[in-house]
């Protein structure tokens, strides 16, 4: 089986206060620590697990991003992914979900995937609109919010998370599958994996390689526009203190002041 995983490099959600640049009105991505989206690590792990269950299969990581995303691809390879493809091009900056889906679809069209894994959403943009868009461009069915996935002959079957429990859902292959958080244990790259990553095939593509016109992607092709950036009204207190052993009292005082206790 040829299993693909779409991944993304993002500002580290644990250390970076996401900022919007008031001039470009876009997310600030430079000068901040960038990592492979932690949600994608779960999704990669799900793909690797399926590869090893099915046997005679490969997992390929695909990403659209700036050149710095090479590092995220290397991490994916270190986790056990077999090869990686990165589409990078200055014209892609400011792409919306539709533009991103278009690029990923063009990349995957050449690959003959059996299954394409995505996270349900990225941890930074969190629109969650790329996987379905990708499936639509490729003319493939999608199985979403999967907490479990099995391949049975020429079908994929998942347990799909719902508000009140789950559904068992199947569709014919090839298909796009989105993986729900917390469903699969993340694989941690070993030293051996990190060293081995350097030898694995890594391809870098540009828009020209995909035959996509710049007007259809990037900010030029985006079908949403930010008109203005504002600030929410300042919250009631916005006070921050250092714990000196008395912070429990300070918190309890705050709760009492606002009748929360």
């Amino acid at each position, binding site marked *: 089986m040829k299993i693909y995983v779409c991944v993304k490099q993002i500002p580290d959600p644990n250390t970076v206060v996401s900022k919007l640049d008031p001039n470009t009105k876009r997310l600030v991505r430079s000068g901040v620590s960038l990592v492979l989206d932690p949600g994608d690590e779960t999704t990669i792990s799900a793909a690797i697990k399926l590869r090893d269950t099915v046997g005679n299969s490969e997992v390929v990581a695909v990403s659209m991003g700036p050149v710095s995303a090479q590092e995220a691809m290397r991490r994916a390879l270190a986790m056990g992914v077999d090869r990686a493809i990165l589409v990078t091009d200055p014209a892609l900056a400011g792409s919306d979900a539709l533009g991103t889906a278009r690029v990923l679809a063009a990349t995957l069209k050449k690959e003959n995937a059996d299954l394409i894994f995505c996270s349900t959403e990225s941890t930074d943009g969190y629109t969650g609109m790329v996987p379905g868009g990708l499936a639509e461009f490729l003319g493939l069915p999608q199985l979403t919010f999967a907490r479990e996935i099995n391949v049975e002959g020429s079908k994929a079957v998942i347990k799909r998370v719902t508000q009140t429990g789950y559904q068992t859902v199947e569709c014919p292959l090839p298909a796009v599958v989105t993986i729900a958080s917390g469903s699969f244990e993340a694989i941690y790259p070993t030293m051996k994996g990190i060293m081995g990553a350097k030898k694995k095939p890594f391809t870098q593509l540009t828009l020209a390689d995909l035959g996509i016109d710049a007007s259809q992607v990037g900010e030029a092709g985006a079908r949403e526009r930010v008109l203005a950036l504002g600030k929410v009204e300042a919250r009631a*207190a916005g006070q921050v203190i250092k*714990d000196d052993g008395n912070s429990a009292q300070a*918190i309890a005082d705050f709760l009492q002041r606002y009748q929360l206790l």
Partner: protein
Amino acid sequence: MPKTIWVLIENENGKAARSSLEVLGKAAQLGRAEAIVLGSVAGEIAPTLGEYGAEKVYVHADAAYDTFLTLPAVDTISELLKQHQPDLLLLATTYDLRDIAARLNVRNNMGLITDATDLSFEGDELRVTVPWGGENLVTATHPQQGTGIVLTRPKAFGLERYEGRNAEVETLNITLNADSQKIKILDRVEVPSEGPALEDASVIVSGGRGLGKAENFHFVEELAAALGGAAGATRAIVDAGWLPYSYQIGQTGKTVKPTLYIACGISGAIQHLAGMKGSKYIVAINKDEHAPIFSAADFGVIGDALAVLPQLTQEVKRRKAH
């Protein structure tokens, strides 16, 4: 000319889903609201929608929509969009509607704004409010002609009643494409909730990776119990397997709007903030003074949650006893 806003109404136990009705009410405030109902109970749901704001309802009562996810609905709505070209498609954020929206966006080259907490038309221009991170409000629009999609954040709007309004019902004459009946629901399993009723709790105490290990989560649960609230979790610790998905708060987890939210060892990733930013009061405890959560909190403590939590639980119990 009033704007025409379409809302897809989901079915919950044979009735219109509350989340759909909330969006319908907002649509009616914006202009002429028209509803679309698809599925075997669509005929029963349609007449109830006038009272919630619909002036017209498109109905297709075919059981195929109940068994086969996403594609039949995308086909039908795409056909309707071509025929009628409404100004806006306004949808609640639910699992099924997200899947439909993502495909409609591509098939009809639309434009899609997600996680909206408010929207309005200023003349012809749509203005959509999307909170971002702790402190930003983004105003976004669809700059081009044609119908755009806006997905609204759960609980952004309340129900609106339009007593005595009767919607015109149009039954669609559509033959569904068998090729679109591919994503098949084999069964539905209700799992009695393993966790707390987060969506209704007025106090939530939530834990994240700063707690260190799964065994420490009890500190969160004890404080929640002392405050008479529910315990929640971030995606990070659900991903790490400490707790089931039902505890997860965040954009693909649950969206909560308690009066009090206490975030313990939580850094404040944007998708987590999206799930709890509507809380009336936010308290944060985190070792890292640079954690993004502090920009969203009303009261923050830079400290070790493992030290502060048991002290706070004790202090809460003490004060409540007086």
